[in-house]
């Protein structure tokens, strides 16, 4: 017993003196299988070289990871890498000096970096208005529509491309005994990606990219209101089921085989393969044929990695090295195939394709194809401060719409006025 302990200590000592690897830490907000894959990728990185040693630490949910990161930064204990989710992007990007732009970091470490390597839908979301990468896109997802294949066969209908198609087929699916559709996280699906799929403006100041001051939400416009009036109408006709703001509550009817369609994340694919006991497919999230210029790409969901400021050069170089490792096609494909998130580079997509992954699992390709659709003026992303709270306001109002407490127009008026008040507050934080 004593011998093994001494041996272990001796080994640890020699290990640390022999390599003197630079330690870097990575705080993330992923659990379950995704968290395991993060550990596996970190081990692969550590095994691939011996100058840097990366330790990933799970901080709970996305929100918890961000608030832990903020608290740590304020007390000078920040990690080298912090994962920040889509809705929190504006918060961390607005805090100039909290992060080192990923592009500067990578180039400063003498690594190669080319924006064009990334797939179109991923390039701008975490970049500044000049297109410089501030965050490193990591786990990216797209909202897609999953289909219960049996339901479509039974009803004898084709999957919808547009919402007009949906209106035609939904009654037939209902007749066949199914709830035609459910959708998780309406904020992401029916507002944010309603904007991107239909190429609609989401905020002034170039969707918020051009500045914090004076940015206002564009929410109660005719098209957005129409989308929700339709949803309410469909809900009243039994063509759409609304089960609150919780992700899983809306997914459950689809998993149980009761709903014919579910709008979820491309990243849900891994989980659905286990939980759904029936053959299923997926198509792009529908858009409105009646809106001119619609059918554009969607915003990416998920999260990006930010290099925190205030770290020594040796550690920053290790972070840069890890970012390069992370975007390598092999790493991306490993992540893609194990989690369902889309690969962020064209090379990784080509690699997965050449390996025949999509012949085997066509559903896995839908998300990335949707992100590679042609873009429009308003599809590169949105940048609004206190956005997680704006989402909460929307969630509250959506519950009221579907319980019949407020009209769609009134709800979106509230969303816009409360949202703008939050944006004005955020502008003051920049002081």
């Amino acid at each position, binding site marked *: 017993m004593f011998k093994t302990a001494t041996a272990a200590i001796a080994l640890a000592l020699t290990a640390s003196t022999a390599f003197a690897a630079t330690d870097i830490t990575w705080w993330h907000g992923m659990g379950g299988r995704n968290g395991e894959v993060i550990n596996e990728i970190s081990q692969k990185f550590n095994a691939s070289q011996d100058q840097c040693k990366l330790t990933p630490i799970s901080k709970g949910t996305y*929100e918890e990871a961000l608030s832990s990161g903020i608290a740590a930064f304020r007390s000078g204990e920040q990690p080298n890498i912090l994962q920040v989710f889509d809705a929190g992007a504006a918060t961390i990007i607005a805090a100039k000096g909290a992060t080192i732009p990923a592009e500067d970091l990578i180039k400063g470490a003498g690594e190669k970096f080319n924006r064009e390597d990334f797939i179109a839908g991923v390039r701008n979301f975490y970049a500044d208005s000049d297109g410089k990468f501030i965050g490193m896109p990591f786990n990216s997802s797209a909202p897609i529509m999953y289909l219960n294949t049996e339901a479509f066969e039974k009803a004898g209908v084709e999957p919808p491309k547009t919402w007009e198609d949906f209106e035609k087929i939904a009654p037939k699916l209902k007749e066949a005994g199914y709830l035609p559709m459910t959708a998780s996280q309406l904020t992401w699906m029916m507002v944010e990606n309603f904007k991107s799929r239909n190429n609609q403006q989401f905020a002034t100041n170039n969707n918020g990219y051009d500045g914090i001051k004076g940015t206002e939400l564009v929410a109660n416009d005719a098209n957005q209101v129409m989308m929700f009036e339709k949803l309410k109408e469909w809900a009243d006709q039994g063509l759409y089921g609304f*089960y609150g703001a*919780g992700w899983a509550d809306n997914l459950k009817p689809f998993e149980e085989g009761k709903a014919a369609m579910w709008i979820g994340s491309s990243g849900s694919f891994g989980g659905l393969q286990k939980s759904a006991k029936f053959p299923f497919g997926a198509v792009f999230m529908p858009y409105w044929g009646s809106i001119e210029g619609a059918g554009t790409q969607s915003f990416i969901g998920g999260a990006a990695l930010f290099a925190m400021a205030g770290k020594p050069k040796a550690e920053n170089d290790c972070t840069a090295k890890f970012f390069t490792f992370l975007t390598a096609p092999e790493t991306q494909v490993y992540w893609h195939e194990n989690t369902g998130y889309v690969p962020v580079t064209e090379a990784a997509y080509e690699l997965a394709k050449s390996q025949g992954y999509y012949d085997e699992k066509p559903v896995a390709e839908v998300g990335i194809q949707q992100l590679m659709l042609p873009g429009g003026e308003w599809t590169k992303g949105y940048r609004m401060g206190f956005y997680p709270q704006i989402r909460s306001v929307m969630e509250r109002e959506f519950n009221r719409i579907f319980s019949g407490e407020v009209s769609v127009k009134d709800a979106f008026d509230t969303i816009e006025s409360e949202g703008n008040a939050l944006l004005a*507050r955020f502008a003051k934080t920049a002081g």
Partner: protein
Amino acid sequence: MTDTPLSAQGPTAPSFLHRLRDWWSGETANPVKRVQFGHGLTPWLFVLPQLAVVVIFFYWPSAQAVTSSFYIEDPFGFGSTFVGMENYADALGSKEYLSTAWFTAFFCVVVTALALGIGLLLAVKADKVIRGAESYKTLLISVYAIAPPVAGLIGMMFFDMHMGPFTRLFAFFGHELRVGVDYWDTTIALITISVWKQIPYNFIFFLSGLQSVPVSVREAALIDARSGWRRFKDVTLPLLAPTAFFLLIINITYTMFDTFPIIDVIVKDKPANNPMTLVYKVYLDGFKGNDIGGSSAQSVILMVVVAALTVLQFRFLERRVHYG
């Protein structure tokens, strides 16, 4: 009146320095009070650990909260704007904040009343049980061992929209229960779980309170009144008053603060239109929304409300409590 004010100590009141020296060496103005410790510093030394905990974990963060409540601040601490009372005005002027406040008050009254009422009823009944009393008590108390988040999870299984037994029960009576979607349905779930979690605590205290009522008093009461209810009302209840007063404060604190994990489990991180307490809103705005100024102002408001409530309780209620 054994205490005499310092200023009235003889013809010349001692100077401040004098008094400080006396205090340092443990010389109190009134020698009657000098009982156990010879040195003025020793007692302070003993309370120091406790004081340190209170200062570090309560006064210091509270002071920070008060300061931040006057600023609108960038979460990372780069920029901040002094806004005076604007954060308070924003909170108190917001319809949502006020409706959360009303809900908290309503929730507090209902949960406290039900948890105390049912706890007392069960304790009175358990007190009478002779056969199998132990297992009966253990069964009731065991719920207390369940951590609030677990209680929330168990509750949510019962209230699940798709397969919960309570949802089916309500459906049987013709009501479609939609916890998480409908405001009042969620309220029902929230109250049920919170009350269920708190009953055992009240039960334990009421039961021990009942068991400390002297047998002689009970027997005397038996002669005076035949009605069990009157005996309970006139004799047992007044003797239980200290316990009840203590439990009242504990239960109010419980509903205001300790129901947090239950709410968190029920709203699943996305409150939407569901009811929540003020504390949960402080957390949401501060930790999820990263609005430090607004969240601090809300927590200061809450602090003031709780302080006022405590003072009121001690001033008006405790006077009527007989400590025997």
